[in-house]
């Protein structure tokens, strides 16, 4: 067949026009598609695009600082650097950890803890710390390798720091990483960016005050999660600063005076109830707990026979021994069971009618003829056996209760134990037995069932020093105002009221009882006269000795250590100056032996420091 150029051209032209037509339809179709995306679904894709680039972040408030009464910093916030991983951005977690391990040293425990934290993450894309407290060298090395480690970041974080370490641990407590249980308790919004929470002590009690209010910011990030700019911000409200009643100098003097022995010291300002010192020895470094203590250190602390983690000042419950004699004596006078003329002849023991048993005085052959004044000064047990028998348990329970024994009285301490103030009801409930007269005799000298914490003893001493006037013990002196008027925070408290003052029929009885306590320090036969010697001011006190039943015994058997641990606990309570008390103190030295030799000298050092306003220590020759 012959070619037909005209027809070819016609066919071609037709097809080309048809093609152009198709192209116009296709172009219109594509534009329709684009129009659909850009006009119809515009809102949807705008939302997606904004979700991509904008992220709501929590702005963690800075935790409030804690000061002592002289504005010495007790707890502040310091930046530490930690390496952390965002799991979603890491291509291979195990490999990334191995790569980091090649740059900075990682222990198996750190890796284990990292995985545990990873499991407990609150939301995806949250970075989880792998190792904290990086050194400058480690930070530099990580920064160099950062481009080959996707998902790995070095993060700076403000972390609690306790500049005075051990000496404040039992009083301040510490913060640590929030655990799941705590998360359920707190407001999840306010803690959305917070990693730490108060675990113990002041840090725990004033958690809400110290924490502050979380802020929020909307940031623009790129696809790799890097923050490019802040679009919108609602600043956080920093936590309030707190000023405590504690005086770090006094605290340190108390610790030094304990000289490494186990025990506790609580010092209170009677006029305010302010706790000037709260010492429990041995102690521990709270800084170890902030970012997470390693297993080895924790085991060492936990398993130590000296139980350094145990707060003896608040939780140690000891038989108060003779330290309660001034209160029992007051009860005797006030109820009229004895008067100032009542005298007994002490031959070293006491016996109830129809009872074979001998109740012995600590002094084998007795104190001779003594009245109440002498009985307190010399700590005569026999006089108190007799008086306790006459008073009866109900009277003793009532008067001891009015001094706060057997109850928790502090305003801002939540971890203290309540001790044990026995009575008829208690004994029937706890032991299923009736109260025997012999129980009263033991109670009269602070032995038997009765238990008290050092905090309770110090509180009772402050009430004595106030001649019955009550001030609840408190750690915080002042909570500083917030940055703005709308920064309202509820200040937690254990008690809103003040206990009733101890009122007695004849107020002069105070002079008599407190006078006898002065004689303990300054009298010829005062049990603590050694500690009252050469003082430029007058003080009052009472020694005590508690038989050991053991607070907690270690599991390991160590004959020598155990023998030492079976010695009596030494106790002392007292206040100074006698005329206008500025400080009331309770001291306990575990297994220290006698109160006069072991505990009273500790109190004397504290009195000297406080009453004489921290004199320069004399050069020892």
């Amino acid at each position, binding site marked *: *067949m*012959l*070619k037909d*150029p005209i*027809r*070819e*051209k016609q*066919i*071609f*032209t037709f*097809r*080309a*026009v048809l*093609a*152009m037509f198709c*192209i*116009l339809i*296709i*172009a219109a179709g*594509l*534009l329709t*598609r*684009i*129009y659909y*995306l*850009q*006009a119809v*679904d*515009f809102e*949807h*894709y*705008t939302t*997606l*695009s*904004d979700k*991509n*680039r904008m992220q709501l972040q929590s702005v963690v408030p800075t935790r409030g600082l804690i000061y002592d009464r002289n504005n010495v910093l007790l707890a502040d916030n310091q930046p530490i650097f930690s390496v952390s991983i965002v799991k979603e951005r890491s291509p291979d977690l195990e490999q990334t950890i191995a790569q980091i391990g090649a740059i900075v040293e990682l222990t198996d425990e750190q890796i284990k803890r990292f995985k545990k934290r990873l499991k407990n993450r609150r939301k995806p894309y949250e970075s989880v710390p792998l190792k904290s407290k990086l050194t400058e060298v480690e930070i530099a090395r990580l920064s160099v390798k950062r481009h080959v480690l996707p998902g790995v970041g070095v993060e700076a974080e403000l972390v609690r720091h306790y500049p005075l370490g051990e000496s404040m641990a039992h009083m301040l407590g510490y913060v640590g990483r929030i655990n799941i249980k705590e998360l359920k308790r707190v407001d999840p919004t306010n803690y959305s960016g917070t990693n730490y929470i108060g675990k113990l002590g002041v840090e725990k009690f004033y958690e809400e005050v110290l924490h502050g209010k979380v802020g929020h910011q909307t940031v*623009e*990030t*790129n*696809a*790799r999660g890097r923050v*490019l700019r802040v679009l919108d911000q609602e600043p956080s409200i920093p936590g309030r600063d707190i000023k405590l009643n504690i005086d770090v100098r006094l605290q340190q003097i108390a610790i030094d005076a304990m000289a490494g022995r186990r025990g506790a010291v609580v010092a209170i300002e009677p006029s305010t109830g302010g706790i000037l010192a709260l010492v429990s020895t041995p102690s521990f470094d709270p800084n170890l707990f902030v970012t997470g203590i390693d297993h080895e250190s924790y085991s060492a602390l936990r398993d130590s026979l000296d139980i350094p983690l145990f707060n003896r000042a608040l939780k140690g419950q000891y038989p108060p021994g003779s330290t309660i004699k001034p209160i029992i004596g007051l009860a005797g006078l006030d109820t009229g069971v004895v008067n100032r003329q009542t005298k007994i002849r002490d031959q070293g023991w006491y016996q109830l009618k129809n009872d074979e048993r001998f109740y012995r005085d600590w002094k084998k052959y007795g104190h001779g003829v003594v009245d109440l004044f002498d009985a307190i000064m010399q700590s005569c047990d026999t006089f108190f056996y007799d008086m306790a028998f006459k008073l009866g348990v109900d009277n003793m329970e009532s008067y001891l209760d009015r001094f706060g024994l057997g109850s928790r009285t502090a305003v801002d301490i939540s971890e203290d134990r309540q001790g044990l103030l026995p009575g008829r009801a208690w004994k029937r409930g706890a032991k299923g037995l009736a109260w025997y007269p012999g129980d009263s005799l033991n109670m009269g000298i602070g032995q038997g069932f009765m238990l008290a914490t050092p905090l309770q003893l110090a509180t009772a001493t402050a009430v004595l020093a106030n001649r019955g006037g009550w001030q609840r013990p408190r750690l915080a002196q002042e909570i500083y105002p917030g940055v703005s008027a709308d920064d309202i925070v509820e200040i937690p408290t254990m008690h809103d009221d003040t206990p009733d003052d101890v009122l007695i029929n004849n107020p002069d009885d105070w002079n008599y009882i407190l006078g006898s306590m002065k004689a303990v320090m300054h009298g010829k036969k005062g049990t603590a006269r050694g500690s009252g010697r050469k003082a430029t001011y007058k003080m009052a006190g009472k020694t005590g000795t508690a038989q050991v039943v053991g607070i907690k015994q270690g599991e390991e058997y160590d004959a020598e250590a155990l023998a030492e641990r079976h010695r009596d606990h030494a106790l002392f309570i007292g206040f100074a100056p006698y005329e206008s008390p500025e400080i009331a103190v309770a001291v306990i030295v575990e297994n220290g032996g006698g109160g006069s030799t072991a505990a009273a000298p500790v109190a004397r050092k504290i009195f000297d420091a406080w009453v004489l306003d921290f004199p320069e220590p004399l050069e020892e020759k």
Partner: protein
Amino acid sequence: MAHQEFVRQLEGGAHHFQNRRGLLFKLHLDPVLLILLLILSCVGLFVLYSGSGESVVHVQKQAMRFVLAFVVMIVFAQLDPSVYRRWSPWLFLLGLLALVAVLVVGTGAKGAQRWLQLPGLPRFQPSEFMKLAVPMMAAWYLSDRYLPPRFKHVLGVLVLIFMPVVLVIKQPDLGTSLLIAASGIFVLLLAGISGKLVTGFIAVVGAAIPVMWMFVMRDYQKQRVLTLFNPEQDPLGSGWNIIQSKTAIGSGGMTGKGWLEGTQSQLDFLPESHTDFIIAVLAEEFGFIGVALLMMLYVLIVARGLYIAIKAQDSYGRMLAGSLTLTFFVYVFVNIGMVSGLLPVVGVPLPLVSYGGTSIVTLMAAFGVLMSIHTHKKMLGK
């Protein structure tokens, strides 16, 4: 007379430019196509600056490629269409050999062998060369025969297309093989292949797909095809690109977020934002208006190309010019269709806008051939 005929082609008011057009004509350049291509190149550079994250280096490199590509276009425009015609079978054969050589000694990246490095020659992609050689060959094969082509000639052309397409698929380079196949098939369609044949082919292919699906393909292959067509199934893997590009386009709205203000592209959420997905940058920053204007530019270029084809003097020039023009639009269709989520993700660049050298040079060479067809006309008496 040629001059007069040329002037007649121009729309009204062209007389003012007569001298300049005369110069362009002597250079064998078509002023309408030239201006449209220059505008498109400039638009491309602007969008590229944004899509590459304000990289001056990228823009400079791309501009250099444009200069090279325009030079290539001018050179190609100087040759007489008869030269192309005479050389068509040899160029095709040469390309076929080069494609075989690529499979044997080729180099490449990301698991695909596409490049050929011959001593004394710059490194090049034979598959790009085939985008020109295949339509030339098909047009050459058909131009001497009776048109519309008979069935056996249609089969002959299909065999000619099949060989390079298979070789390119083996590289593997699905996008380019698609374009090569299209360029050949367009020649057939423009040659006047009967509607019955077209329907028949479509029916055969349509019937083969379900059979393949039911009896031949394995489960994992089916899965791959499914994700190819429905990328949202895998939002962090292959679906990521499409989700992000749709988000970029959609969030642009009617007027866009403004040049360099697109958050999807500037904050690196949009992958390949300077290469295959650059239309999403344009759509995000200039909105629907921007996309519509760009589409208009493409349609005008295609219209001019088809006009040149219709006006060509012989069937070889007609078929070649028409095929090259339509292939150019396939780029546009596949790319925009892919980025807007209508078509599966196939690596086809947006012509003269996407960053990347080889396709620009090939495209401009094709426009050079178009201009050559348009400006070398023999004076024939009607």
